[in-house]
């Protein structure tokens, strides 16, 4: 334990409070959508009704890639990226590297989208920035991820904003650790039979204490991701490579070797995927082919970490003959401390290193952080409201954001399920969120009291959550539980149950005879004891 002097502790309390109150609302939005985005893949499968059983990389892809190659102008055959889209379909981006007018390296080419049976469903031309937007079948998960990554603010400003929020969270986490005088005692103190005041305070304290290390890890890795491409790489490239970002990318991510520009057909990709699955234990998440169609072509397959490991796996193959070369780190040509550190940042942030278990833990701790962020801001406001009545508007704003944001997210899921069969999900998912947010703001303006507003938003969210499985089944035409489980997608049934359970939990306190004991005066009493 670090014991600061009294005046230093006071300074840390001020830093902790102001870092939270200045950026807390935006931070809450980023953390809440990030918590949901832990299961973005599963939410995508649930919302779009994915029932294909095999990964696209467990099926032959070689013939499809050669067919697409023949359709692609030679200008865009410099490199190819292969990945899964939709219901285990194949996404193939044939492209070349360019530098735009501002000197930023970009990729321009043709993006083909095939379904699970190999039928070409869509072809899009443009730069990677332009073409990798949301599609009709993944608009919901894309919306969640986009909100979390950049709050829908255009890049680089969106990434810079979430990076600053990450730093604010880092400050709150470190100062939170420094001001805890009884850290180990607080972890286990949860007096469920004590007075409501103490129960409320204990819950806040326990959630905050348990999520402190997690908050530190998430803030650190999150700000790393936000600043990596926007500030970090350009600054380091300026100092070391005279501003040549492409040269730095090549030094860090490239596969060194003697250039051999002689034309050569690409090796059998089915051999590569089969060998990669055997070596890594699971199908690739991404395949990158450099120097496509040349004798020095290189194929890299990227995989999630192996069981019991935290570092993702990457395997390198010779492109021309599809032979295995070596396992390589995700960053750097060979093993190194820096490459390992950079490689584990992703799994630490996304919680995808131990399958469902680690994701569930990350989701739970993320939820605890939302709770801590919200109740922390609320305690700050309620305590000061006694002396400064003008802060009442801030308390109401907190309620609008704290409970209106989950309502907006559930409403956008409902809008997605209704509009997806019509092919307009990209528009209506965002529109649904904005309409629900506007409704929450209006409720905040006209509700007679803060308690009424909270109850209104909670019951609306709960009702919409209970309706989601019905919308999925009967409006979106999604698979039933038996079909989903037989197709290896038990997550569809699990999410249905989770939505109903959460919905019932939210509306149950408004049933006659079951009144929540957690009322504003209790919080006020709690703050007085802190």
């Amino acid at each position: 334990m670090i014991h600061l002097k009294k005046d230093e502790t006071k300074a840390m309390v001020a830093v902790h409070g102001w870092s939270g109150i200045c950026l807390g609302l935006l931070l809450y939005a980023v953390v809440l959508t990030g918590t949901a985005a832990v299961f973005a893949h599963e939410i995508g499968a649930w919302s779009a009704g994915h029932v294909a059983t095999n990964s696209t990389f467990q099926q032959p892809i070689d013939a499809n890639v050669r067919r697409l190659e023949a359709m692609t102008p030679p200008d865009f055959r410099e490199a190819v990226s292969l990945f899964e889209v939709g219901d285990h379909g194949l996404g193939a981006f044939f492209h070349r590297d360019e530098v735009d007018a501002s000197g930023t390296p970009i990729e321009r080419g043709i993006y083909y989208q095939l379904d699970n049976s190999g039928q070409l469903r869509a072809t899009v031309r443009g730069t990677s920035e332009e073409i990798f937007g949301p599609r009709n079948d993944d608009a919901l998960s894309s919306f969640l991820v986009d909100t979390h990554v950049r709050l829908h603010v255009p890049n680089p400003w969106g990434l810079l904003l979430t990076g600053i929020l990450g730093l604010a969270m880092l400050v709150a986490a470190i100062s939170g650790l420094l001001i805890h005088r009884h850290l180990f005692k607080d972890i286990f103190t949860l007096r469920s039979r004590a007075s409501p005041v103490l129960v409320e305070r204990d819950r806040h304290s326990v959630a905050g204490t348990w999520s402190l290390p997690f908050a530190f890890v998430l803030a650190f890795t999150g700000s790393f991701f936000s600043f990596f491409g926007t500030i970090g790489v350009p600054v380091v490239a300026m100092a070391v490579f005279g501003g040549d970002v492409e040269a730095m990318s090549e030094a860090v991510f490239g596969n060194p070797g003697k250039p051999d520009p002689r034309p050569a057909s690409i090796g059998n990709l089915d051999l590569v995927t089969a060998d990669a699955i055997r070596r890594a234990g699971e199908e690739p998440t991404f395949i990158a082919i450099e120097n496509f169609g040349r004798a020095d072509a290189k194929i890299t397959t990227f995989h999630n970490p192996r069981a019991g490991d935290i570092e993702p796996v990457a395997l390198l193959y010779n492109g021309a003959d599809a032979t295995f070369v070596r396992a390589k780190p995700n960053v750097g040509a060979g093993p190194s401390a820096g490459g390992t550190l950079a490689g584990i940042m992703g799994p630490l942030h996304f919680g995808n290193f131990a399958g469902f278990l680690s994701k569930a833990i990350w989701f739970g701790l993320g939820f605890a952080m939302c709770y801590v962020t919200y109740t922390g801001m609320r305690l700050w406001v309620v305590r000061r409201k006694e002396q400064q009545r003008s802060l009442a508007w801030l308390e109401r704003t907190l309620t609008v954001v704290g409970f209106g944001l989950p309502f907006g997210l559930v409403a956008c899921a409902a809008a997605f399920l209704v509009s997806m069969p019509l092919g307009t999900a990209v528009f209506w998912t965002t529109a649904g969120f904005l309409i629900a947010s506007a409704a929450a703001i209006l409720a905040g303006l006209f509700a007679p009291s803060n308690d009424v507003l909270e109850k209104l938003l909670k019951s609306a969210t709960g009702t919409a959550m209970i309706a989601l499985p019905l919308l999925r089944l009967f409006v979106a035409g999604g698979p039933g539980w038996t079909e989903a489980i037989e197709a290896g997608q038990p997550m569809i049934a699990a999410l249905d149950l989770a939505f109903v359970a959460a919905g019932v939990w939210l509306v149950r306190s408004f049933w006659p005879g079951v009144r929540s004991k957690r009322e504003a005066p209790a919080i006020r009493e709690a703050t007085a004891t802190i």
Partner: protein
Amino acid sequence: MSDQIKSLPRPIRQPWARIILAGPVALVVALTLLAGMPLWLPGGAAGIDNLIMPLVFAPLIWAALFFHACLDRSLVRVAVIAGLLFLVHGALIASKVMNRAPTTEKAR
């Protein structure tokens, strides 16, 4: 007024100087370190550690400078350490840029 300031906790005295040191100064020094550290850090086994380490640790470097400015009882010490880090890394960057310029001229 001076009595009021004296009655404040020590780390909160001279709040504007502290805010400037913890805010813009910490940011500028962190950016200078980010640019300068690759020039002296060892490359490691794969020759990329000097490029990657500053990128990975950039948020922590900023946080260290921020908390130092908030907690150190001597503002002069905060300013001296930040200034030294800035000058040393700034000089490394300037030297690298100046060495590059004649090479570029020669290549032309």
